[in-house]
């Protein structure tokens, strides 16, 4: 936004912070240790921040904004003349003004309709001449979204290509580019103009990509968030082979002069994995030419950034959020940097029950088992089994079950060996069911500990520790900054989720207060972290009991991790439902969920071993809410005290009809 180079304050912010740091470094007069360097940097940042405040940054920022705003208003006024749907201020006017306007519009309408009709009829007659170019130019200048006219222009240009000399064609296309540039100046957000520019540039006999790149530079200096222009820039970069590191330096420059630039941070997230991939493949400095398969996305597994670069990025982001802690762009980027890679695709657990004659398989991600080539081999024999998701509403699920043919494994004296193959991923998991045993499982325990942690290597814990230290420093200066609080929570989780549990809960409490509009988000996120912690504790204790009561849980997640759990206690939380995913708890025998607000039991469905349910003091109010329980064959004890449903007429006879297996009913 604007031209920063003439602004005494708006130099390169990154440079200014760097100078501050070097000043401190020079005072030491000796080489610095890594740790020392970091704390000096932090000092420099805090000092820089103080300087900013002292300079009453708010004042000049406001001034700057006011200037921008008035420039913007002038621009908007120009646009008012065009037919636009956004930001048109309603202005009251007198009857006389209305009448004048009406007349003017009538005149414009007549001109417009005449020109349009001439265009349409010429095109119908197959006329591709200069006059048509002129007419469409007039119309498109005032209405660049009239896409059919761009199409007509392209037809004319393609026709001229066949009848003119190459030099002539070059000239025609060059003047077309000038015309498009004028359109873009008037309306920089028209899809049609940008697409046409790309079309012309690609067709030019002697393309000039350098000029296109400089057009992008100019356009982005007027509006650094114009996504049409950013997209066009990516086309130009690809077509002309601009090096990735050159583009990265371009974002350095933009971010350096204004940290609050989400588009630039976004662009970085796409460039870094190309330039500094996590995998040891050599970096490719120039982009591949356009290819048929879509390019990688920064969200996918193998496109994370190598650790060394990651550390440099942390510094850049730190500069940003110390300069302006309320700017969300840097925080979003930081969360991505702190993120972990997806889990490896594998079968994480196989469970077999002799009694139920059923096999349950847990995958590291949701799949559709019938589509991924899942095969069960029992004692060397491939079995014809039907895989089904644990709940009909979950078409993709991490947990799938199948029933074995009757009496295949029911004899307790026999030993059996099972293998489940995931043929699509060339992976498998074996499981042995020894004689004398009623059940067995085999699972991947190595990942349990790291399951919910950051994927940064253990050696780099010190790095995260120092990141946490700087965020804590910032939080001291800005105790109610929500971005900083949330980031502290994420860092604590990456470092030591159990050790920091108390602080995490306290920070969530503050977050809900300072950002009450999003309190439900924070509740759900906090629930997720508490569930992760409880899973970790369960793993350490090597038990099959999952107990998480009185933790303000508002949602359930990671239920696939609870496949082997036999007893669950969810009492005294804020749950409103047991969702379909709940029936991933295939081994569950006892369910306690007293003192919640549960009104929906959809997930208590076909749980083969479930015997006892306690749902005291919930909000179950209708008979049909209890219907899923009828699919649990072993249910014998049900406690429904304190639920509205028990007050209904005929409740007792209805429930014994619905759940004949229940012998102990508490109302």
């Amino acid at each position, binding site marked *: 936004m604007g031209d920063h180079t003439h602004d005494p304050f708006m130099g390169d912010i990154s440079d200014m912070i760097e100078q501050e740091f070097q000043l401190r470094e020079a005072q030491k007069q000796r080489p610095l240790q890594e740790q020392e360097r970091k704390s000096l940097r932090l000092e420099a940042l805090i000092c820089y921040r103080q300087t900013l405040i002292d300079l009453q940054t708010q004042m000049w920022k406001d001034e700057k904004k006011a200037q921008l705003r008035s420039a913007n208003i002038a621009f908007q006024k120009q646009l008012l003349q065009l037919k636009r749907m956004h930001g048109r201020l309603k202005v009251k006017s007198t009857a006389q003004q209305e009448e004048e306007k009406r007349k003017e519009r009538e005149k414009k309408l007549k001109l417009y309709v005449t020109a349009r009709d001439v265009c349409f009829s010429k095109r119908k007659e197959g006329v591709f001449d200069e006059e048509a170019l002129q007419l469409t130019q007039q119309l498109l200048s005032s209405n660049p979204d009239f896409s059919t006219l761009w199409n007509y222009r392209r037809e004319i240009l393609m026709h001229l290509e066949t009848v003119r000399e190459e030099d002539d064609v070059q000239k025609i296309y060059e003047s077309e580019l000038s015309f498009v540039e004028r359109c873009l100046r008037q309306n920089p957000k028209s899809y049609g103009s940008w697409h046409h520019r790309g079309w012309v540039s690609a067709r030019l006999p002697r393309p000039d990509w350098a000029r296109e790149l400089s057009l992008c530079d100019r356009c982005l200096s007027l509006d650094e968030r114009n*996504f049409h222009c950013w*997209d066009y820039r990516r086309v130009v970069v690809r077509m002309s082979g601009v090096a990735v590191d050159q583009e990265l330096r371009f974002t350095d420059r933009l971010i350096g002069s204004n940290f609050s630039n989400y588009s630039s941070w*976004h662009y970085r997230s796409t460039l870094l994995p190309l330039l500094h991939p996590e995998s040891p493949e050599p970096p490719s400095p120039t982009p591949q030419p356009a290819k048929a398969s*879509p390019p990688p996305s920064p*969200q996918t597994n193998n496109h994370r950034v190598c650790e060394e670069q990651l550390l440099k990025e942390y510094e850049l982001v730190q500069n940003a959020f110390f300069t302006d802690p309320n700017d969300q762009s840097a925080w979003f980027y930081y969360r991505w940097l702190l993120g972990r890679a997806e889990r490896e695709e594998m079968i994480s657990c196989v469970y077999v029950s002799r009694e139920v004659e059923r096999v349950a398989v847990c995958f590291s991600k949701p799949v559709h088992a019938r589509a991924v080539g899942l095969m069960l081999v029992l004692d060397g024999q491939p079995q014809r089994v039907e895989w089904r998701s644990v709940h009909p509403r979950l078409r993709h699920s991490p947990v799938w079950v199948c029933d074995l043919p009757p009496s295949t494994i029911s004899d307790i004296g026999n030993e059996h060996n099972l293998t489940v193959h995931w043929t699509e991923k060339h992976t498998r998991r074996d499981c042995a069911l020894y004689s004398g045993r009623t059940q067995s499982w085999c699972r991947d325990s190595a990942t349990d500990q790291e399951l919910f942690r950051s994927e940064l290597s253990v050696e780099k814990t010190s790095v995260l520790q120092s990141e946490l230290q700087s965020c804590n420093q910032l939080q001291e200066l800005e105790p109610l900054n929500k971005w900083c609080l949330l980031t502290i929570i994420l860092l604590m989780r990456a470092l030591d989720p159990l050790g920091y549990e108390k602080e995490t809960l306290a920070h969530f409490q503050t977050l809900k207060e300072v950002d009450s*509009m999003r309190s439900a988000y924070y509740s*759900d996120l906090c629930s997720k972290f508490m569930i992760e912690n409880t899973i970790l504790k369960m793993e350490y204790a090597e038990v099959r009991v999952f107990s998480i009561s009185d933790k303000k849980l508002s949602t359930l997640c990671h239920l696939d991790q609870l496949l082997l759990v036999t007893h669950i206690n969810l009492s005294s939380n804020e749950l409103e439902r047991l969702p379909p995913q709940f029936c991933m708890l295939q081994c569950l025998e006892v369910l306690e969920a007293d003192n919640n607000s549960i009104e929906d039991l959809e997930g208590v469905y076909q749980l083969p071993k479930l015997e006892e349910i306690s749902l005291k003091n919930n909000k179950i109010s209708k008979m049909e809410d209890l219907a899923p329980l009828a699919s649990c064959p072993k249910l014998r004890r049900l406690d429904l005290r304190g639920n509205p449903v028990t007050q209904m007429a005929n409740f007792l006879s209805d429930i014994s009809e619905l759940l004949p297996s229940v012998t102990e009913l508490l109302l």
Partner: protein
Amino acid sequence: MGTQMKDVVIKPDAPNALILDKHADYIAAYGSKRDDYEYTLSEYLRMSGIYWGLTVMDLMSQLPRMNCEEITEFIKSCQHECGGISASIGHDPHLLYTLSAVQILTLYDNVQAVDVDKVVEYIKALQQEDGSFAGDKWGEIDTRFSFCAVATLALLGKLDAIDVNKAIEFVLSCMNFDGGFGCRPGSESHAGQIYCCTGFLSLTGQLHRVNADLLGWWLCERQLPSGGLNGRPEKLPDVCYSWWVLASLKIIGRIHWIDKAKLRAFILACQDEETGGFADRPGDMVDPFHTLFGVAGLSLLGEEQVKPVNPVLCMPEDVLRRIGLEPDLLN
């Protein structure tokens, strides 16, 4: 210090009650301004304009006030030899208007008014080698067009006509570091685009591939202190973005992450009490586009005076029930 947030202030005298009658009158009258300069300038999107108007009328149970025969005839005359449908007579066919036309005909339970097989052929021919869709024969690629293609085919019950797997891979390749989606691979996340991509993944049964917690966070951070939602960080709130964001949150099962009461107040404040209709922001000029998304947003927020709206197709739920279409939602 700190970034000054871009937002609007809702004045104390801003409308705070829903004035449905006025909105219905506004839409009913809109089509009669045909000699209007501005109306003529918007001819290039007429088919979508009609879809906005009819859908909001149906949500308000006022569809019979619109001229069904005239509109059906108009749509028929906009279908081209290639099967595609254009915004208006004399304009070129495009996926955007093909979807709008099929949505309108679905409201009227009359898709047979156009040559359905040809529509399907048209869409099929626009799919590219990498699974993406061009908007028309001139080759502009955009995830909006991926959505248009599958939404049209889903309404026609013909999703199997295209290479769905390739189409899915393309859309997923547009996923960004923030969990959102852009126009093309590498493009910045944008609420309108996120709506198209989550809607696309819903219709193709692939919502489990969305990083719902991360995307949901980005989406709920679109809510500003005024209660309105913006479409990207550091932008002004807008009724239409309120819809794109809200519908996306509904699709990924996280609509409770925003403050519903504050959003409702913002949307209501965008009504024009004199003329009827909704504007993008309080005090701006109204138009049918923002009127639909204002009413549809209120419907998603649980407003009982209007019909329930489907978040994926932005059409009344009863219409989709009639044709047996139930797009997935995460829970």
